[in-house]
C-alpha cells in the first residue's frame, strides 16, 4: 500500500437505523476489511444475548451502555477505514431528537455528506432536513444514496422519480456537487462492487466515488489568512531572538517574501521565513500547521491575524450569523455570551433575532423569536472587540464561530457568518 500518497477524506452519514445507515457503514467497514475478528465476535455475542437472530451491525457503532440498552445512538461516533487510495473518517450521526445538533457537529469538518433515502418512501421530511444542513454547513459534495433498491425490484423508474423529486427541492439549496447512486446496503449492490441487478445504472459505485471525488480544491487557496495561535520564544542561547508565530493556515498560500498586513494593528511587513520542525518550508497552505517569522519586530499575540496586504478580511464588531442552537436553555435576546472565532475570543451580545428557520419547509418565521435546542436561526451579534472574518460560504475557517454560556461554560451554539 502506497500510504505516502494517500489522502484523507472525511464524510458524514445522516439518517435513522431504519434507513439502513448502520448496515451501510457496517458494509463499508466489512467489505474494506476494517472490522476485526474480536470486534465481530463481541458484536455476535452481544446480539445473541439480546436474542437477535442476525448479527446486529449497529452494535459496532453504538458503543455506550445507554445506547445498547435503549437501541439508540446518543452522540457522534467516529469510524475509520482505509483503502489503498484514501483513508476515511466517518462521522456517524444519529437520527433522533438531538439530531440537528449532532449532524451540524459531524458536518462541520466533512468533505462529503451521504444522504440516505429509502427507495420505498422516497424523499421525506428527514431527507430535506439532512440536505439543508449539509448545504448550510457548506459540505462541498453531496451523495444521495437511494437505498433498499432490492425491495423495489431494482427499478430504474423508482430511481429516476426519486432523483427528480430530490432535484426539485434541492435547487433551492446552496449545494454545488450532487451525485445519485442506487444501492442496496444489505445486499451489497453498488457499494464496493458494481451491481449485476441494475445494468441500467452507468455511474460509479459508492466506494469508487469516495475514493475518487476531487477534494483537492475543498480548501480556500485564495485568501491568505493566518490566525496566530501561539507565540514561540525559545529564550535560549541558540535561538536568542527567535520569535515565531505558530498557527494553522486558515486559507490561501503563504510564501517567504510575501507582503503581509498584521491585524488588528494594520502594520505591514514581509514574511521572513516559514519554519517547521523539519526545517524551513517554501510555502504553507491549508491545513498545514507551521510557524511564521516576520521581517520586522512587531509584537503579535494569540488572536491576531497575518493576512495578505492586497486581500484582507472584514474587520468588524457586527455580525450577521446563521446559528444552530444546542442548549436546553433557549437563546436570550440581548443575552451575553462568550464567542470563539479562529484563535480569537471575545464577548458578544445578541442584538436581534431576525427569524427562525423551519428546516423542513425552509420557511422563515420572523415572529417566532423562541430559539430552542436544535433550532436554526439568523441573528445579529455585536462583539466587544473587532473580529477578522470572511463569509462562511467563502471560508469555513474564518467564517465560523461558537457561542459559549458564560455561566456553565457549555458550547450553546454554532454559527456561520453571512
Amino acid at each position: 500500500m502506497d500510504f505516502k500518497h494517500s489522502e484523507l477524506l472525511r464524510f458524514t452519514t445522516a439518517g435513522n437505523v431504519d434507513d439502513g445507515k448502520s448496515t451501510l457503514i457496517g458494509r463499508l467497514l466489512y467489505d474494506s476489511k476494517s472490522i476485526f475478528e474480536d470486534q465481530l465476535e463481541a458484536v455476535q455475542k452481544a446480539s445473541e444475548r439480546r436474542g437477535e437472530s442476525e448479527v446486529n451491525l449497529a452494535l459496532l457503532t453504538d458503543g455506550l451502555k445507554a445506547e445498547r440498552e435503549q437501541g439508540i445512538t446518543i452522540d457522534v461516533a467516529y469510524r475509520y477505514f482505509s483503502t489503498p487510495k484514501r483513508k476515511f473518517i466517518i462521522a456517524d450521526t444519529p437520527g433522533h431528537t438531538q439530531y440537528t445538533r449532532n449532524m451540524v457537529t459531524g458536518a462541520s469538518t466533512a468533505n462529503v455528506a451521504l444522504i440516505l433515502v429509502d427507495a420505498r418512501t422516497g424523499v421525506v421530511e428527514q431527507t430535506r432536513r439532512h440536505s439543508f444542513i449539509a448545504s448550510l454547513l457548506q459540505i462541498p459534495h453531496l451523495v444521495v444514496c437511494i437505498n433498499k433498491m432490492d425491495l423495489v425490484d431494482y427499478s430504474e423508474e423508482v430511481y429516476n422519480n426519486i432523483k427528480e423529486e430530490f432535484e426539485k427541492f434541492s435547487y433551492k439549496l446552496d449545494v454545488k456537487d450532487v451525485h445519485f447512486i442506487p444501492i442496496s446496503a444489505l445486499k451489497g449492490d453498488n457499494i464496493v462492487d458494481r451491481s449485476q441487478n441494475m445494468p441500467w445504472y452507468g455511474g460509479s459505485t459508492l466506494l469508487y466515488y469516495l475514493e475518487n471525488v476531487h477534494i483537492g480544491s475543498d480548501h480556500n487557496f485564495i485568501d491568505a489568512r493566518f490566525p496566530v495561535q501561539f507565540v514561540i520564544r525559545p529564550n535560549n542561547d541558540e535561538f536568542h531572538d527567535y520569535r515565531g508565530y505558530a498557527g494553522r493556515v486558515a486559507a490561501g498560500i503563504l510564501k517567504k517574501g510575501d507582503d503581509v498586513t498584521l491585524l488588528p494593528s494594520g502594520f505591514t511587513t514581509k514574511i521572513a521565513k516559514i519554519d517547521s520542525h523539519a526545517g524551513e518550508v517554501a510555502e504553507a497552505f491549508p491545513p498545514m500547521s507551521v510557524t511564521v517569522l516576520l521581517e520586522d519586530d512587531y509584537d503579535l499575540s494569540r488572536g491576531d491575524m497575518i493576512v495578505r496586504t492586497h486581500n484582507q478580511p472584514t474587520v468588524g464588531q457586527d455580525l450577521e450569523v446563521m446559528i444552530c442552537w444546542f442548549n436546553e436553555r433557549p437563546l436570550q435576546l440581548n443575552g451575553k455570551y462568550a464567542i470563539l472565532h479562529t484563535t480569537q475570543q471575545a464577548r458578544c451580545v445578541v442584538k436581534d433575532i431576525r427569524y427562525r428557520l423551519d428546516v423542513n419547509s425552509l420557511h422563515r418565521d420572523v415572529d417566532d423569536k423562541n430559539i430552542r435546542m436544535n433550532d436554526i436561526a439568523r441573528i445579529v451579534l455585536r462583539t466587544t472587540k473587532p473580529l477578522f472574518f470572511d463569509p462562511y460560504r467563502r471560508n469555513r475557517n474564518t467564517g465560523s464561530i461558537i457561542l459559549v454560556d458564560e455561566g456553565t461554560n457549555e458550547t450553546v451554539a454554532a454559527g456561520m457568518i453571512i
Partner: protein
Amino acid sequence: MDFNYNLNHLKELEAESIFVLREVAAQFENPVLLFSGGKDSILVTYLAMKAFYPARIPFPLLHIDTGHNFQETIDYRDQLVERIGARLIVGSVQDAIDQGKVVEEKGYNASRNFLQTAVLLESLENGKYDAAIGGARRDEEKARAKERFFSHRDEFGQWDPKNQRPELWNLFNGKKQIGEHFRVFPISNWTELDVWQYLSIEGVELPNIYFAHEREVFERDGSLLAASEFIQRRPTEIPFTTTVRFRTIGDITCTGAVRSHASNLDEVIDEIATSRVTERGTRSDDKRSETAMEDRKKQGYF
C-alpha cells in the same frame, strides 16, 4: 492555478495534532502530558516537540507507574526525558499501596490497572494540572470512539459521555470551573496503522519490546502473558519461551504478547495491515465486561 497543494493523510493528521497541542498550551495554565512509554504517548511527545520547536515542550511529562513495568519501557522513558530536556513526574501506585491509600487486588487476575485511576487523579490534583494530554485514539475501543479532542472532566475527574460539549470546526472550548480539568487527545483521529506508518517515515526510535524477541511467556484465555514475578500463575499455566512482540504496552499484568517475527517497523506495518484482531484484543483489562472501558473512563481512567 496548480493544485498540487494537498497533504497526504499522515501529514494532515500531523497538522491536526500539532494544532491541538498548541491549543492546549494557549488555553490552559498548567497542562501535563501523560506518558506511559507506549507508542501512542511516544508519538504525542514527538508531535509536541514538533509543535513547539525550537522551544522545549512547555509542559512536563507525567508517568503513572504501576510498579509492574517492562524494564525496557523505563529505560526508554529515562533516555527520552534526558534527550529532550523535559521534566518528568512519576505518580507511583506502589507508594499509594504502601501508604494505604489504595488496596491491591488479590488472586490470579490481580491487576493494578484499576488502582492507576486513583493515583492519576491524585497526581493531577497535587500538581494542580488543568489539562492532561493523553494518547488515546478513537479507533481503539467503542467508548473511545465517542471521545472529544477536548474532553471535559468534573471536579471528581469523571467523564459524562451523555453530556459532552459539541466540537465543531477547529474551535475548541476549554472553559471550565475551578477544580475541573480537561483530558485532551491530540491523536484522536489516528488509527493503529497510521501511528506505525508515521513512526516509520519519521524514523522515531521505539522501545525494543515492540519488535520480535525471545521471551518466556504463558497462555491464559487465549492471550500470551509475560512470565513475570508480578503475575500469579495457576499450576496449569506452564511458561515456555517463544518469539513474540507487543502491540500495545501497558502494565505487565494485563498486556498480552503476540507471536511475531516482525523485527523492524516495515515488518510491523505489514503485520498490522493484514491483522484480523484489534490491538486491544491483547488487553485483558478491556475484557472484564462489554463496557469495561466506558466504566473505567467514567471514573477518571484516561
